[in-house]
């Protein structure tokens, strides 16, 4: 007899049998979210990173372009430079803070825009169906089978670099995944009894979409928005690392790494400035990691039934 098998089954039965007292959907979501430790952790860390990058620069007098010529390549914990300095005497901590503003803004903005566009297309395509739906989804199929990253590189050359252009590049090809998810869900919601009864009562399409379809799609939208954000932050940093994204002297976590790579084998003075590589990359990593934690928690908390199907 298999001990481990029965133990597993028992655990599961126990889990299912545990009574949960709930009053409303919102409470249910909050209860579930609270019990997801990683998601809570993620939310706290993200708020921390946001405060660090938004408010941090207010407390230091040095700007991201200010150079300290007596401290070139100073290691971390040098007086006045907790994260050290780079080849021009820029303070790495200050640049990480300003760079974070840009990386977070680009990530957040493109996540919001791609999710909005994707949702609109998905709602429209799924709800009205027909030839428009078929054309749109074929288009999405085609776009999804184009190698993404090389195209992003090409698009940055077409649109040019700079914050707004990077957001544009990331959104042009970013909305397809969301639209497909939303459309699939809308297709099944469209056939539910409550939508049919609303139709029978003569409710107009716009109102059905707003009152009956949209609320059911929101969980999936929120989850894919977090996924989009982590993707956008990674993509922006990769593009900037390749020298195509945010251009110096404006710092972003990605382009700080690009400059760090020049000194990866050591400087002419023979030192090895690892802090130039470690700090910006660590912040990208921590941010993306915790966005993913948060997304996972939201996925579990919001509506496991719909979201896990996707």
């Amino acid at each position: 007899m298999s001990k481990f098998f029965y133990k597993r089954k028992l655990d599961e039965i126990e889990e299912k049998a545990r009574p949960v007292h709930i009053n409303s959907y919102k409470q249910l979501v909050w209860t579930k979210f609270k019990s997801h430790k990683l998601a809570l952790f993620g939310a706290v860390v993200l708020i921390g990173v946001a405060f660090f990058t938004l408010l941090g620069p207010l407390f230091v007098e040095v700007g991201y372009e200010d150079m300290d010529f007596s401290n070139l390549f100073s290691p971390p914990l040098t007086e006045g430079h907790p994260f050290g300095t780079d080849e021009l005497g820029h303070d790495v901590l200050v640049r990480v803070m300003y760079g974070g503003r840009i990386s977070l803004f680009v990530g957040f903005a493109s996540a919001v825009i791609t999710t909005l566009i994707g949702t609109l297309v998905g709602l429209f395509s799924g709800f009205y169906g027909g030839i428009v739906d078929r054309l749109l989804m074929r288009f999405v199929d085609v776009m999804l089978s184009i190698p993404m990253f090389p195209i992003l590189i090409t698009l940055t050359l077409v649109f040019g670099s700079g914050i707004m252009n990077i957001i544009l590049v990331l959104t042009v090809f970013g909305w397809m995944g969301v639209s497909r998810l939303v459309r699939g869900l809308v297709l099944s919601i469209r056939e539910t009894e409550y939508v049919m009864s609303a139709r029978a009562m003569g409710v107009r399409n716009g109102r059905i979409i707003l009152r009956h379809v949209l609320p059911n799609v929101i969980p999936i939208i929120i989850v894919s928005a977090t996924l989009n954000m982590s993707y956008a932050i990674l993509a922006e940093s990769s593009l900037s690392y390749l020298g195509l994204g945010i251009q110096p002297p404006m710092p972003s976590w990605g382009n700080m790494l690009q400059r760090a790579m020049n000194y990866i084998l050591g400087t002419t003075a023979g030192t090895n400035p690892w802090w130039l590589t470690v700090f910006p990359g660590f912040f990208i990593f921590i941010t993306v990691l915790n966005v993913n934690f948060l997304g996972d928690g939201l996925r579990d908390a919001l509506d496991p039934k719909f979201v896990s199907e996707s």
Partner: protein
Amino acid sequence: MKVYFLKRFLELVPIFFAISIIIFVIMNSMPGDPLLQMRMQNPRAMTNDPERMKELREYYHLDDPLPVKYFTWLKSVLTGDLGYSSMYKSPVIDLIASRLPNTLVLTITAWLIGLVFALPIGIISAVKKYSTFDYATTIFAFIGISLPGFWFALIAIIIFSVNLGWFPVSGMATYGITGFWNIFSDRVRHLVLPAFVLGLVQVASWVRYIRTSLLEVLDQDYVRTAYAKGVPDRKVIIKHALKNAMIPIITIIALDIPYFFGGALIIETVFSWPGMGRLMYNAVISSDYNLAISCLMFLAIITLISNLVADFLYVMVDPRIRMGRKGA
């Protein structure tokens, strides 16, 4: 079966053309005049003579309207002429042929590394669901999908090449080494870091798929029956459960093949690995038009083919689909 694949294959044809149009339009909206670029690279070969420039513009079909350009290009590509690379001064097809093996070596090694790590980890974490090992795997999987690949590569270089000196920093081979075994070990030493970085990043997402898919199967009645019959745990998992769990896993792994080529782009750039990814990057950056568009199309074709392969494997391993349940 055959009809199904023929049908699937024919479906790819319009998608292929649609992709080629999109890529062509994007590439054509890239700024920069190829002729001016040629003049910059070799100022003495072409004079500033406007007559001569006009002739050249005509010769290269630079002023044709976009649709005409597209068909000219399509015609030459379909007849096997990919054009001439302005940056490397050699035919595009030769360049791709010389770089492709390098990328294949890198991606196949990375792919194997990913598989070797992901399979056992995924199986153990599914079998021991909610154990410490499972939680640790979950966290590591999250870390894996959140790591920026290039940063991981840089850190690996700092630790293993610069500080420990175990592996070379970049490149694919050291110049001037003789003897088969010396060359072989030199190649391997160059391969280790990029292949591991590329492969380990992939382990994270595969582990999750393997875990989910195996868990689903472990809940099935026939697995319970096997346990009830007194089949040992190990045998149930490997013979009964894993066999069926492999179906979605195989599909995912096949679908990820193009990712390796795309991911290789940045890893190849970091490690100066002379493969397709870096070739494509250099081509796009220096607006080497023919080369860039060929590389992009090549990647798109690989994507389409691996979709087809995934489909094919899916049908091969799952007899239920062959019966036409999925609807061919």
